[in-house]
């Protein structure tokens, strides 16, 4: 048999791909940060890099959920308004004197509920994720505006805010929190049966169904996870700003999708990497930070953003080579 001669090929190719998938993003990250380091001395300083991490943390948090949704072959445009809804409800409870732990659970609970709503429409009614969550985008935003009459909610208890404003060993808590969730997401995706279900449903839904994967439950779950992480993002931001705004999270979905895509997720489903997504979020965060440091004028910031998103993808592509 030709087997002996054929065998090595796949092995080699495989390791090649998987190792390279994230390498591409990494190179992009290094290149872009390198450029900023050259252009602005204060960019590569320890404190500023912490700053970048802190400023990327919320987008990273949202992007974790987004990555799962994208891997499952869907998309979640409703993360921003979900965060807003979760934020204002939580804040109003805190102001009303509800104990912090309960409020935290509520924040995540709200996210789970909106996710459940999206998920049911997608999995059972069989609607397209894009359009369902586009509806959700308006729906949840409207709910939080109506709930607050459009006003931000202030006067949050100190102990709540300190959770998200203080830091451990010099590392801001938001960064630590998101790191923890990132590890969880990575673990779930790469080590648990559920993670395989997500990959399978996104990779070949019919095959997954035929193989007895609980497709619908899997889909609903990823949207609930995305919602929950939006809730976490809402908590972090509310804690930092000391106010919960009904207009919170405007355009978060685009940042999160960009982070996932730069991180190697395919919007056709079946492919995506948590590590890559994190790097994607840091690239975007570093981008904003660097442009501000260099005091680039508004129009040119926009220009740079557009160019760098595309360049990052090109570098990633080149690193991988045509597949």
């Amino acid at each position, binding site marked *: 048999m030709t087997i002996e001669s054929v065998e090595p090929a796949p092995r080699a190719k495989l390791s090649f791909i998987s190792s390279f998938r994230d390498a591409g993003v990494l190179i992009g990250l290094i290149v872009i940060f390198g450029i900023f380091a050259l252009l602005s001395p*204060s960019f590569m300083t320890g*404190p*500023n890099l912490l*700053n970048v991490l*802190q*400023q990327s943390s*919320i987008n990273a948090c949202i992007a974790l959920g987004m990555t799962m949704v994208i891997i499952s072959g869907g998309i979640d445009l409703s993360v921003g308004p979900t965060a807003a809804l979760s934020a204002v409800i939580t804040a109003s409870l805190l102001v009303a004197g509800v104990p912090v732990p309960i409020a935290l659970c509520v924040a995540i609970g709200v996210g789970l509920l909106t996710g459940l709503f999206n998920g049911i429409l997608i999995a059972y009614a069989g609607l397209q994720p894009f359009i369902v969550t586009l509806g959700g985008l*308006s729906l949840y935003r409207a709910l939080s*505006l109506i709930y607050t009459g*459009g*006003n*931000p909610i*202030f006067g949050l208890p100190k102990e709540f805010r300190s959770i998200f*404003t203080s830091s451990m060993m010099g590392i801001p808590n938001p960064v630590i929190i998101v790191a923890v969730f990132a590890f969880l997401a990575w673990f779930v995706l790469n080590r648990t049966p559920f993670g395989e279900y997500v990959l399978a449903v996104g990779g070949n839904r019919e095959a997954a169904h035929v193989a007895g994967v609980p497709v619908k439950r899997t889909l609903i779950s990823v949207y609930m996870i995305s919602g929950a992480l939006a809730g976490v993002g809402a908590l972090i*931001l509310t804690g*930092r*700003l*000391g*106010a919960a*705004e*009904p*207009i*919170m999270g*405007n355009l978060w979905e685009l940042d999160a999708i960009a982070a996932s895509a730069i991180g190697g997720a395919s919007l056709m489903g079946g492919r995506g990497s948590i590590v890559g997504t994190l790097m994607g979020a840091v690239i975007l965060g570093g981008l*904003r*930070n660097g*442009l*501000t*440091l260099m*005091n*680039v*004028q*508004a*129009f040119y*910031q*926009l220009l740079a953003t557009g160019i760098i998103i595309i360049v990052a993808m090109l570098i990633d592509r080149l690193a991988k080579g045509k597949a």
Partner: protein
Amino acid sequence: QELAPLNSDTEADRMDWSQLEARFGAFKAPKERTRVGGVSKTLANEYWRSLGEGYKAFADRHGVEVVYQAAQDEGDQLGQLAMAENLITQGYDALLFSPQTDVNLQPALEVATDKGIPVINVNDAVIPQVAHYVGNVQKDNGVRAANWMIKAYPEGGKLAIIEGQAGVFAAGQRTAGFTETIEANGKFEIVASVPANWSRELAYNAAATIMQQHPDLKGFYANNDGMALGVVEAVKSVDQLGKVAVIGTDGISDAYASIRAGELTGTIDSFPVLTGEIAMEVALRLVNGDDIPRVVATPQALITSDNIDVFASTGEALRKAILSQ
């Protein structure tokens, strides 16, 4: 008849709001069942809600029906146009537009003009062809903030601007006003002038980054209060409260509260409720046939802890306070 393109800041045919009564006599209640329609940018921002309250307050006092609508968000230009057009088809006696941009309500304005419905452009973006403008001078927001900085720091120093959405009229004007005044003074350096797209979050991040780089920063000017409050949080997070001045724009209630709490340094209040009342009065006077100048300037004031109690008042009290400025 083509009107000369309006520049609300320099138009010669103008008057101050306070002169209305003096020049056109006491306000005569309009005829029965007069209806006035208002279209503004977004209700998600307290400023525009307050403006609507102003409309309503004055209209209610004189038994006039008001419809006040707003687009879904500040970027929703076509939606706002559709609203304006739909209002026109319903036959109102006067229309109050607060356009998203200088031009997005132009077609509605033209139709209304053809139908002889007076249109009053209230604040922010200015429709060049509009026959009547009521509002403050956007640029003056920045100028006042700059002047405060100049007074507060005679020796000059580093300043930063947190801008609104790139390309939006108000953002551009306010930034320009501040920058020009500061540069004219010469002692200061504007180390950063970056966009935060009206977002509290982005303002926080930008401010944090800027202070990181310039620990000796003297103050921030933010194009609106939402962003200013984000900056305040950033300042607090590095324990610079009191050392770094933060001045916002609009004078929303949260800004007042923050000033009282000794956090926000100040805000340029353009008195939305009062502005709304004035705009409604102008509208009704036009319906009554008064020949009002093209621009009616509404008040503005820099609110700080020193004068906050004076301006916190409403209605007549507020009017007095402003006039006694």
